């Protein structure tokens, strides 16, 4: 199974680079769907077969929330705001990819002293999860478009969730469901706020939200 775990983690990491390289919002949202598929699949590959029923359930819920509902919400917000692409990111796309490569290297370095104490056999898992988290953060700070930032939050949450998925067998289901519910509501509330911003300002560029300062 370890081969499959590695493949899905690799999918996650490649999707990260796609996110960093593209300016089209629709492509960003599509890529989050890909990440959701990779995430829910690799949760299963960690456990031994036969899979516990709860784990299959959790994987399906993850796929539904992160792969169907949230992208749908983002797509709707995109149409309502009438914005197709990121115009002028703070950090350019090729520079973002370069930073991404450095971050990926760092993610591997960090986990050399932090030897995994859990029975995670794949040596890609923890670095891949950390890199996805960092990619999300990079998207949030280096892009101006509010919707790209929401997508960045989602990607970051995917990365954190991948850490959790490594523990999915041990962690109580209730908490995992709570986490998913919170992420869902967070994106929902952010979507509403983006919609209100686009109505009030006629744009959703967050660098122009700069009236409040000292």
């Amino acid at each position, binding site marked *: 199974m370890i081969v499959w775990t590695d493949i899905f983690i690799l999918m996650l990491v490649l999707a990260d680079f796609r996110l960093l390289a593209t300016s089209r919002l629709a492509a960003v949202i599509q890529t989050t769907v890909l990440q959701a598929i990779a995430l829910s699949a690799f949760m299963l590959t960690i456990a031994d077969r036969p899979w516990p029923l709860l784990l299959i359930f959790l994987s399906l819920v993850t796929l539904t929330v992160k792969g169907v509902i949230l992208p749908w919400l983002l797509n709707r917000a995109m149409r309502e705001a009438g914005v197709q692409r990121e115009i002028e990111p703070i950090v350019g796309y090729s520079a973002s990819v370069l930073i991404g490569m450095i971050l990926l290297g760092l993610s591997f370095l960090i986990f050399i*002293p*932090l030897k*995994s*104490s*859990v*029975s995670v056999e794949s040596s890609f898992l923890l670095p891949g999860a950390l890199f996805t*988290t960092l990619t999300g*953060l990079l998207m*949030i700070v280096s892009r101006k478009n*509010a919707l790209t*930032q929401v997508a960045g*939050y989602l990607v*970051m*949450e995917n990365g*954190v969730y991948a*850490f*959790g998925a*490594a*523990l999915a*067998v*041990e*962690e*109580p289901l*209730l*908490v995992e469901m*709570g*986490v998913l*519910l*919170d992420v869902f*509501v*967070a994106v929902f*509330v*952010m979507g509403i*706020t983006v919609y*209100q*911003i686009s109505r*009030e*300002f006629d744009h959703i560029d*967050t660098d122009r*939200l*700069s*009236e*409040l300062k*000292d």
Partner: protein
Amino acid sequence: MLVSIVLIPLMLGLLALVMPWKGARRALLIAGAAYHSAMTVFLGLFRKDAYTSGAWIGLDSQGLLFLAITSALFLAVAIYTTGYLGRDSERKVRDSVEGFLFSNEPEAIFIACLLLFLTSMSMVCISRDMGLLWVAVEATTLVSAPLITFHRHHRSLEATWKYLLICSVGIAIALLGNYFLAFAGHGKTHLNLDNLVAGAGLLDQTWLKAAFLMLLVGYGTKMGMVPMHTWLPDAHSEAPSMVSALLSGALLNCAFLGILRGHTVLAAAGLGEFSGELLVFFGMLSMAVAAAFMIRQNDYKRMLAYSSIEHMGILALGVGLGGLAGTGAMLHAVNHSITKGLLFLVSGHLLFTYGSKKTYDVRHVIRTAPLTGILWVAGFLAITGAPPFGAFLSEVTILKGMLEADRWGIAIGYLAVLAVIFIAMARIVIPMAFGLPQQDQPVEESPLSKKEPLWFAGPAMVMAFIILALGLYIPGSVWNFLGQAAAMKGGF
């Protein structure tokens, strides 16, 4: 029993969403607040029944302390809100900065979100499981976002956006901290506080340190710790005043509870020094940066927001040092919350009376609205730690703790920052209260009465009385209780 302090406000909140009558909706808010307070007092007295070791929820001494603060503050805010909505919810309001007219959010959403906010904060206080705690803290962010944008205009939207995004990212990092805790337990320990404390010796120390760092950054963002504090002044200055009071007095404490839980686990694992020193460092940093921004501040709501950052710094500092300073910090949490609640309510009335958030527009309050003026000055003295108010006692206790621990450098820095803040705030507050208005700017007559209504004066005076009483006498049993909360034992 215990779970009802979460369920009842939740049900009332959902009911408020569909309730068609205005009066009944406001009654729901009062009912929720009253039930919550009564239940908190009851649970506080008969706490043994509300605590089972290893359960998901339970009322330990730290949780009870923060629950009581939240409950008291919410009751005051609920009374204030009913009057405030009666005055402001239906009419078009003139913006205090740019003068355009705007309308407010529908009242049903506002009241529902207030009650849900109470629900989620109560959940934070009674969670005995790090995962559940995380879910509850994230929920507080989401239900309080609509509260900040009650006044529907572009500045409140900007503040809400920053609040939502920065805090959500912060909380996501705290989730990473939770998972790191699970890694530290080799994936075998449930993140229940009792389990973690009992099995602390078996936890992996490197992972544990990483976990605390993540929890500190994550919950620290929500708590307004420098340098992750940037959302706080914006959200506090744009939210309606009673929401600012809740954010500052209750929500920041709840986030702090998350850090306290992490500190408890590390202390049990023998890493208390590591986490304590981090808290001391970030506490001092928060105090110093807040002081820098309070000098020459010309917006009085932002001034109060920076003061909250300062006081969160004091809490972190006290807890980080531990011992007597920790006990002082617990007392300080009470003093800060009640005092800041009072100050924000007063600032709301100042904003209504003068129609401006700028300090130079507000002059001679003591004559224009005598009661507001007296409360404003009293609140200022209390928050800066002047005797005879409660914060004086708690700040001196923390200082004593520092001297007992022979931390002279920290003590000198602490006193210096407090002195700077006292002078900075005095230079803002004293001219507001006693300064004469500029002659060429006649105060515009508002059609509405300037006299303090009972819904404002009542809660505000009770709060002022409480902070005065806390400064005069604290019974031995309360000291014991605070010491227990500061002991970081995690349990009952």
